[in-house]
């Protein structure tokens, strides 16, 4: 049955920053101390960003991600909505988020739906957790030949750091918790609210 009402609308709260590779170890050391897990999880993922151009307005963007370290795991499809405009004092970027686990036919299926791949990249790093918060520290590499994940090139000499929480709509206490956690990481890294519209096409 198509879901119309009563669905839990999940929101992603996000803060981002970056560290030079030379500061990476110090950051990982600090995070190991502050966060829940004994040993952080490492990952290597391949993400493809698909666009569906409509008659009017901005193209519809979907992100399809698969694990290169666990090749049989399902694909992860993600939709991220426009950032919620509102309370300027809100500390984190807030946007609607829909996550779907999908079978390996996902890229072919998206093409059949009319989506076209805009760009792809490989990302590899560590995941830490603290309660509901997730911290991802990763490097991003561009894929030189489409579809070939063996041959990649680092995009920069820094690592991207993302602090995020997924929560049902209306739980505004999240951004406060995130802000106080981010304080503990200063001055190693400054995590801030980034405006994604300034980075898009």
């Amino acid at each position, binding site marked *: *049955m*198509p*879901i*119309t009402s009563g*669905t839990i609308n999940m929101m992603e709260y996000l803060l981002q920053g970056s560290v030079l590779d030379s500061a990476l170890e110090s950051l990982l050391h600090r995070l190991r101390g502050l966060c829940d897990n004994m040993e952080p999880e490492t990952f290597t993922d391949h993400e493809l960003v698909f666009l*569906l151009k*409509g008659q009017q307005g901005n193209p*519809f963007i979907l992100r399809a991600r698969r694990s290169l370290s666990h090749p049989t795991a399902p694909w992860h*499809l993600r*939709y991220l*909505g426009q950032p919620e405009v509102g309370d300027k004092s809100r500390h984190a970027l807030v946007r609607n988020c*829909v*996550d*779907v*686990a*999908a*079978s390996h*036919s*996902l890229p*072919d*299926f998206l093409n*059949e*739906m*009319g989506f076209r791949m805009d760009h792809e990249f490989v990302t590899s790093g560590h995941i830490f957790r603290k309660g509901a918060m997730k911290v991802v520290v990763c490097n991003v590499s561009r894929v030189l030949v489409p579809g070939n994940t063996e041959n990649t090139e680092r995009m920069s000499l820094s690592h991207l750091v993302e602090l995020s929480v997924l929560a049902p709509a209306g739980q505004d206490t999240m951004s406060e918790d995130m802000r106080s956690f981010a304080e503990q990481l200063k001055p190693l890294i400054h995590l801030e609210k980034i405006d994604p519209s300034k980075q898009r096409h």
Partner: protein
Amino acid sequence: QPSKLLYVMHNSEVPLSCMALFEGGPCLTADTNFDVLMVKLKSHFQNAKGHKVECRGSRYRYCDFLIKVGTVTMSSSARGISAEVWPEFDIRDCWNLMREFIQSFLGNNVPELPTVFAAKPEGLFAPADCVDTMTQYLELFNKLRKLQIPGSNVR
């Protein structure tokens, strides 16, 4: 580009999944959040509400067979009756046994080996998965949708 039909299907045997298919094209198996995603995509994909087909009924277990008998309805008008038979093993290996079993209650109305299985590579154990089931249901539902006279014999 001519418009394509995207079918989104659900099966109570796999309640946490959602199948999306293009007839004769790729099929996606996803979790039920796919329905939420389709709502977000409503400006790109129009929902043809009047075409929804539903099949409801009972499921029975007889030794190694699972039999599901349902009534197929399209916008509250009954269009037909479906029977789904599931053996525990590779359908092509036990097709003869299945035919005998189906004959015992359907008489001479035994269908041929469904085309989804005829296409599979020989000699490999290829368990029937929800994609094969949904492809067959889609074929059946489309035949029933096109019927001018509800109740005509369609297999």
